[in-house]
């Protein structure tokens, strides 16, 4: 009986064993509570952030970049909508598959490691931001991508504002270009206003005026589900467009300058001499800034950088060239102002000039005979200026030249300006540790030797001659409207006024008019009804010993550079044009017609009549 009764008062073991299990249960519950405390109290901030990152996507709404306008209010840089392919790294499921599918739709280089690497590194470091993969898709491409949405979870097409330059290459070197901000640039923007994929001015006015032109990005905070689909808009901050930059440039003149230079390398600069306003500034060959705004390909970028004609260099303010005969009016002016050479004094030109055992040739082999200063300028007689150079010496010449703006930083409001070199005895001593030799003064007289100048300096120098000593700071930007609406204007700025004798100024102007109109070397710049004054220049690139060889017969790289700098009308200068053609040969034949075209276009819309005379 007893064995069959399963009462358990006599089994204290069962109670003990049950208690042990209960304690184990209590222990496990304590462990669970500890774990929950760890996750929900200690680590909760981290997980809250992860949950928000799960749920929220920040979609940047890029601000349109501001306009750049020419003097007549025409947009020369504007912002247009473009269909861009954007990648959201966190939503990418299979990068390789998606990329190769895209490669079939968009002609973008699937193997381009730049794009793939960028996405890969963003997947690790910053998966919740978006990356622009390709810009400016065509409509068919957009529809094919939309059709394949399911297979491309990480990619989407957004309408984005893209920089566009309606005049193409014409304004390339003035406007510069925009590109995506580099990581360093993002770091440098101290307010953190630059986001990945933002466009930033990299060169030219785009870079200089970046603060004005760049808008303030807006954003959309969107809630997404686990599949990355947008569920609802949580928050939206509208973007603010960038401000406007008004320039003094004239698009018609700019296009004319570009056409006139054509395929040749060189620079054409047009200025208003009394205000320093830049009317046209072309450097050739140029690049297409539109290509940069759409994300230039590496190969194209390399091609631009290895081209021997340097399309990425702004020859107007970065290229320095021997001035050749264009320097002669400055020597004449020095002679007059220093009262060391009277304009009536005649010098005999037999075709060459001898100094010791050196012989310096005149460009005209048979010589000019007896020439006074006027004839010497008009005919560009080298022998006259050899003797004048020798007589004046480098320091007097340099003093006047520097005063007019040659060999100095002109202070133009474009980035990257370089200054040329106007040699002095002091310069020679410090740089070469040698004394100045007389023969150097001789060749300095015709703008050869150590002297070299930028086309911009030349344009400013001639503007100073034209105005009789007013040195103006060259200006491209005339007015700026900030994004807050504040207007800033940039009035003409006179750097200095040279105390020149008006008689001397008058004489030089007349002589320069003679170059164009009095059977001089600049005859091909002659304009009907308007008196143009200017000077040709042919700058030797390599000295060819022995016989005179025609420039056209030389290989391109050692052909002479051709200059022509002029202003008009001579008695009331309204425009100065400097043209330089690299390896163009003679200034009179290669550069003068360019200046003529630009002036013709300038005066086409500005009749020069009595009513204009005397006006500024």
């Amino acid at each position, binding site marked *: 009986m007893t064995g069959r009764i399963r009462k358990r008062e006599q089994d204290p073991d069962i109670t003990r064993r*049950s208690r042990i*299990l209960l304690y184990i249960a209590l222990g496990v519950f304590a462990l669970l509570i500890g774990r929950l405390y760890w*996750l929900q109290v200690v680590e*909760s901030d981290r997980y809250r952030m992860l949950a928000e990152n799960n749920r929220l996507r920040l979609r940047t709404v890029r601000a349109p970049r501001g306009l750049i306008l020419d003097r007549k209010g025409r947009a020369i840089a504007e912002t247009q909508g473009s269909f861009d392919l954007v990648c959201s790294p966190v939503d990418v499921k299979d990068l390789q598959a998606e990329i190769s599918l895209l490669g079939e739709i968009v002609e973008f280089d699937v193997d381009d490691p730049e794009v793939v690497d960028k996405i890969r590194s963003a997947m690790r470091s910053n998966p919740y931001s978006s990356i622009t993969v390709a810009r400016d898709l065509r409509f068919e491409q957009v529809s094919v991508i939309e059709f394949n949405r399911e297979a491309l979870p990480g990619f989407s097409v957004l309408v984005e504002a893209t920089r566009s330059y309606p005049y193409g290459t014409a304004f390339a070197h003035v406007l510069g270009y925009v590109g995506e901000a580099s990581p360093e640039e993002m770091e440098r923007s101290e307010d953190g206003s630059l986001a990945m994929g933002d466009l930033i001015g990299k060169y030219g006015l785009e870079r200089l005026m970046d603060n004005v032109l760049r808008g303030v990005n807006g954003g959309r905070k969107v809630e997404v589900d686990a599949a990355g689909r947008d569920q609802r808009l949580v928050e939206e901050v509208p973007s603010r467009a960038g401000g406007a930059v008004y320039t003094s440039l004239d698009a018609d003149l700019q296009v004319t300058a570009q056409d006139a230079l054509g395929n040749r390398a060189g620079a054409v600069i047009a200025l208003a001499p009394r205000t320093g306003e830049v009317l046209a500034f072309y450097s050739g060959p140029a690049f297409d800034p539109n290509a940069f705004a759409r994300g230039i390909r590496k190969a194209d970028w390399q091609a631009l950088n290895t081209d021997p004609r340097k399309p990425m260099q702004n020859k107007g303010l970065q290229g320095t060239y021997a001035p050749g005969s264009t320097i002669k009016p400055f020597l004449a002016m020095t002679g007059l102002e220093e009262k060391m050479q009277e304009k009536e004094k005649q010098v005999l030109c037999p075709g060459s000039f001898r100094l010791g055992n050196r012989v310096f040739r005149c460009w005209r082999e048979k010589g000019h005979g007896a020439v006074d200063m006027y004839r010497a300028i008009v005919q560009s007689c080298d022998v006259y200026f050899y003797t004048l150079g020798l007589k004046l010496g480098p320091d007097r010449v340099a003093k006047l030249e520097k005063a007019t703006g040659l060999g100095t930083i002109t202070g133009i409001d474009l980035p990257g300006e370089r200054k040329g070199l106007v040699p002095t005895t002091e310069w020679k001593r410090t740089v070469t540790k040698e004394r100045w030799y007389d023969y150097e003064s001789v060749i300095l007289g015709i703008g050869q030797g150590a002297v070299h100048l930028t086309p911009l300096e030349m344009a400013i120098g001639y503007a100073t001659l034209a105005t009789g000593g007013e040195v103006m700071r060259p200006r491209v930007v005339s007015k700026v409207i900030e994004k807050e609406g504040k207007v800033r204007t940039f009035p003409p700025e006179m750097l200095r006024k040279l105390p020149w004798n008006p008689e001397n100024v008058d004489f030089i102007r007349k002589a320069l008019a003679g170059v164009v109109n009095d059977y001089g070397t600049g005859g091909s710049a002659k304009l009907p009804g308007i008196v143009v004054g200017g000077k040709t220049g042919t700058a030797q690139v390599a000295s060819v010993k022995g016989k005179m060889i025609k420039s056209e017969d030389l290989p391109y790289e050692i052909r002479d550079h051709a200059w022509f700098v002029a202003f008009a009308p001579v008695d009331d200068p309204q425009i100065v044009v400097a043209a330089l053609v690299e390896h163009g040969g003679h200034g009179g034949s290669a550069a003068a017609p360019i200046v003529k075209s630009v002036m013709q276009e300038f005066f086409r819309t500005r009749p020069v009549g009595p009513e204009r005379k005397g006006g500024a």
Partner: protein
Amino acid sequence: MTLPSKWARMDWPLLLNALALCAIGLLNVYSGTRVHGVPGTALVTKQLAWILLGVAAFFAVYLLSDGFIEEAANGFFIAVLLLLVVVLLVGRVRGGAQRWIALGAFNLQPSEFAKIAVTFALAKYFSRTYRYGGVGLREVLPAIGLVLAPFLLVALQPDLGSAGVFLFILAGMAVVACVRWKVLALFGTAGAAAVPVLWFFMKEYQRQRVLTFLNPELDPLGAGYHVIQSKIAVGSGGLIGKGYLQGTQGSLRFLPEQHTDFAFAVFSEEWGFLGSFLLLILFLLLIYRLFFLTIRSQDRFASFACGGIAVFFLTHIVINMAMVCGLFPVVGIPLPFVSYGGSSMLTGMMALGAAANLSRSRFTFQGGGGKGRVIGS
């Protein structure tokens, strides 16, 4: 025992505790089945029906006459074994596993009922083999054989999670039934040694789960996804939670199975540490009550069965919560009364009904006389 006296001896705290958990579960199912912020009512209605059916099942089992459960234990066990075979033959394949039998609108999951059937069968076996001073190896081997059959059938589905629950029940009941510590240590060692063998028999996805449990960040979008998203849901709940219906992990579908196995993740995201703590207290009270009944039952079968039921709930609660918190690999084990699911609800309620039924015996008088229940008399 008459109906009024049964009524008078009813263990109300046990049922009220379970109903409180059911209410929380119902609210949670409502929140967890929202898609993109739109609540889904269909599953809430179904869950409510399951709760009502569950309460009915509770009373049906509770009202069974004294001794019936013990007498029917073996029959119930054999019936459930047959059901498990049927599942393997005609069961519905869902998510790569054959776990359900379609019954009209409902899918029945026999492995849930098997857990209770095994508990009763083991209680009956151990109550017979009980020896003062401890049960030896020879008596334990048949018990292992008893569990092995349902274990293998469920493991074949394959549902290693539920199969594992049988082993926990066996181990827990072996402790309560005073199997000698030496024997328990022997099987513990043998079990640990068997892990590599188990690894060999595991399916690829199961191995993957274990590996990603050890390091979820290995495959954050694949096998580690569940664990990571679940931890994010729990952790982002913080101290006081995001508020009811304010959770985002579930409604935006970052959580998988958010109303069934991961219901607790939804709950703790919305109610935070305080809510989770209170829920754990409710579960702890339930477990405590079951152990209390284990200790206080006057009858060995009742004691062992209550102990087995306590271990059954304990295993489910702990494994499910540990899984949601990233302390245990992801296995398909529901949280009793809180997760959506009919079989789990019915099983839980039946188990509690049985515990309430068996605990009536603690009021019986000592000795063989009166209305005392004496087996075999």
